[in-house]
């Protein structure tokens, strides 16, 4: 069997507090296959974002090992990893084109190669007409597209998405989901999506991990079985309802736990 | 903004005293008086009736000027802040007025008010009134619209809206304005005493400058700095307590 693209073994996260320590996450064992679309859902506060930050070397695990392409993750973000955050991470002082090429201009790349990748990303994300606009002139959805395009042009082999559509309205989310699927198919990258939206995970992912309330552990991984060539119209498929229903059944008790004993 | 810790002011005072002593050792007694010597001299001066009269003169002028600056600044700020158009018209003008070197206007103040208490008061108030007005005005503009909408839904009268919604909501920013106004009014009053005045700490400072009497210069400056820093710190603490509740 080929080595997993990302491999986590016995990973935990413990925060020191005034009265002792808070066990926030784990232990988690997780393998991501190369080229798959993997989603993680869980109740709020279960540490799913922390999981992502550990793979991106933005937060160190308290115990356990994280590997990317067979190599342990050190103190700095590994080459070939792109991250899209929930918050608007556009640089307000740069226009859309300069925002997208920011990372490229830091690499030894020829000008025409940068221009080619920029064109490709603008087209794929539907931003061609806005290349000269500044982020302040764009809607929230458009800004998030700029951030995705900015990650995309660096041609990452692993794309980490931390609730990228959390601040968007439902219709925009569905359409952005389609664009994400296009991008995933076009680049062949492995995608890890952290989300609290069950339908989003059920629609986009090949596999969905369900996490428990704190300390977050993976309680089950569900195979959706969708064809690679899929889009948001899948929500009308009865099978989609079945997957979403299964996810909610698993999550309901955990979410009640996360809300507290009064419920 | 990082939290300020209780030890910070003490450590800062110690640091400044050390720097002062270092500067004294470097520059020599012709340029500076040593910290301990200055404090001792100030303590001794504080007991003399002559020095106390100067303090009383400055204090009287400063208090009147501060009252005028705060009352006038609040009134102007509230009147302008209640209307969006008035705020947009007035803001750049007030900011430009704040950037004028007011000392250049002092001859006019003297010609208008004549030498004496009223000129000092006018010059002190001139320094303090604009910052109080600017902060009050922007405080009114920055109130969350939902609060004003709630007031409208509760059918409060205009006066009630100002008293029970506008002023309490704007209070932290107004306190900031008063703090700025306090500092600038003090500086303005002392500056006003430096010219065309026969009493007060500013007068004392100016005569000492003429005589190059470093001991008096440093004692008066130390007294002013200590007073200004103490009141300003107290106002800042009050402001932080207000903001932590908002």
């Amino acid at each position, binding site marked *: 069997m080929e080595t997993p693209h990302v491999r986590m073994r016995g990973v935990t996260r413990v925060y020191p507090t005034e009265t002792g320590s808070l066990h926030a996450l784990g232990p988690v064992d997780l393998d991501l296959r190369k080229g798959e679309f993997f989603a993680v859902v869980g109740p709020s506060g279960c540490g799913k974002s922390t999981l992502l930050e550990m793979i991106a070397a933005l937060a160190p695990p308290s115990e356990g090992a994280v590997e990317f392409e067979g190599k342990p993750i050190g103190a700095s973000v590994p080459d070939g990893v792109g991250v899209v955050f929930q*918050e608007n991470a556009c640089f307000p*002082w740069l226009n859309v084109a300069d925002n997208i090429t920011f990372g490229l201009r*830091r690499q030894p790349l020829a000008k025409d190669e940068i221009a080619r990748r920029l064109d490709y990303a603008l087209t794929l994300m539907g931003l061609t007409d806005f290349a000269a606009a500044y982020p302040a002139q764009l809607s929230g959805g458009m800004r998030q597209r700029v951030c995705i395009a900015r990650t995309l042009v660096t041609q990452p082999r692993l794309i980490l998405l931390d609730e990228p559509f959390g601040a968007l309205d439902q219709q925009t989310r569905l359409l952005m989901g389609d664009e994400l699927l296009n991008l995933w198919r076009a680049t062949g990258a492995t995608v890890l999506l952290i989300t609290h939206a069950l339908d989003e995970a059920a629609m986009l992912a090949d596999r969905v991990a369900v996490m428990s309330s704190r300390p977050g552990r993976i309680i089950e991984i569900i195979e959706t079985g969708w064809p690679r060539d899929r889009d948001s119209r899948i929500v009308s498929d009865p099978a989609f309802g079945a997957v979403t229903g299964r996810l909610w059944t698993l999550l309901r008790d955990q979410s009640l736990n996360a809300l507290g004993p009064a419920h | 903004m990082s939290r300020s810790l209780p030890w910070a002011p003490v450590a800062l005072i110690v640091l400044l005293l050390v720097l002062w002593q270092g500067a004294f050792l470097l520059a020599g007694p012709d340029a500076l008086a040593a910290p301990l010597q200055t404090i001792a001299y100030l303590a001794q001066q504080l007991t003399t009736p002559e020095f106390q009269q100067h303090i009383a003169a400055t204090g009287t002028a400063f208090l009147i000027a501060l009252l005028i600056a705060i009352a006038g600044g609040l009134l102007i700020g509230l009147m302008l802040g209640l209307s969006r158009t008035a705020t947009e018209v007035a803001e750049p003008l007030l900011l430009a007025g704040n950037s004028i070197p007011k000392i250049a206007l002092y001859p006019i103040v003297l010609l208008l008010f004549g030498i004496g208490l009223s000129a000092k008061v006018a010059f002190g108030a001139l320094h303090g009134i604009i910052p109080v007005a600017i902060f009050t005005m922007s405080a009114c503009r920055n109130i969350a619209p939902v609060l004003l909408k709630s007031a409208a839904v509760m059918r409060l009268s205009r006066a009630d809206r100002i008293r029970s919604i506008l002023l309490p909501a704007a209070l932290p920013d107004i306190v900031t304005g008063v703090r700025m106004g306090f500092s600038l009014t003090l500086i303005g009053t002392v500056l006003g005493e430096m010219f065309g005045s026969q009493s007060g700490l500013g007068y004392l400072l100016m005569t000492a400058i003429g005589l190059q009497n470093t001991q008096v210069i440093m004692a008066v400056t130390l007294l002013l700095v200590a007073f200004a820093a103490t009141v*300003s710190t107290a106002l800042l603490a009050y402001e932080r307590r207000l903001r932590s509740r908002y």
Partner: protein
Amino acid sequence: MTRPQRIALYQALAVIVPVLLLEAGCRAGIVKPLTMPAPSAMTVGLVQILASGRMNAAILKTLANVAAAFVSSAIVGIAMGAVIHRIAPVRRLLEPLFSTYYAVPIYGFYPLFIVVFGLGDAPQVLIGFMLAVVGVIVSTLNGLDSVPRVLTKTARVWRMSGVQTALQITLPYAAPHLFTGVKLAAAYSFIGVIGAEFIMSQSGLGYEIRFAFDNLDNGVMYPLILLILIVSVGLNMTLDHWDRRLRARRGAGR
């Protein structure tokens, strides 16, 4: 008439009407010429003084000192702000100083500067610098505080060094705040230099005003005061205009 045009009209009226009233008051003899000459007479006097060139040396001296205080305070202030922002204990130590700094009568230190630096330009420049620099430092700290964590995380994703992050992410993000500091520095440099010249110096515009005042020479004093008003307000409005353009491009979205 659009709204911005109407605002500009009101602003013009707010300046012109009082000036016209003053002019009328002076001509009607309500304001005595010994107290204040009419605005038109001040303007004529200013034109004559500028045409005669007899104040050129004083004007140049003041402007050069203001420029020196302004440039040094802007550079030192931004650099110190960036350094202090990175070292939390130093910041906590200095924060009380920053918050009470403008309550300190800086002019009180002026005689010491004269004793230490002599009667040249250095004491005036130093007063301007001292008034200006803390405003720049505080604006820089506020600007760096406003940088969202997601942008510094993004810098880490690109494996940028500390210096790269500062130059390419945090400082550009904080630019509008930094510009506010620079605007303050311009005003304070001017206030400091003019004030120092006025109190005790042998040259510069502030000195000339003081000299004219001591000699009851209203024909020189008022035109020079007018000149200072024009320069300080003009400088402030120019910088304010750039400030607004910079902020408009960033929009309300930030």
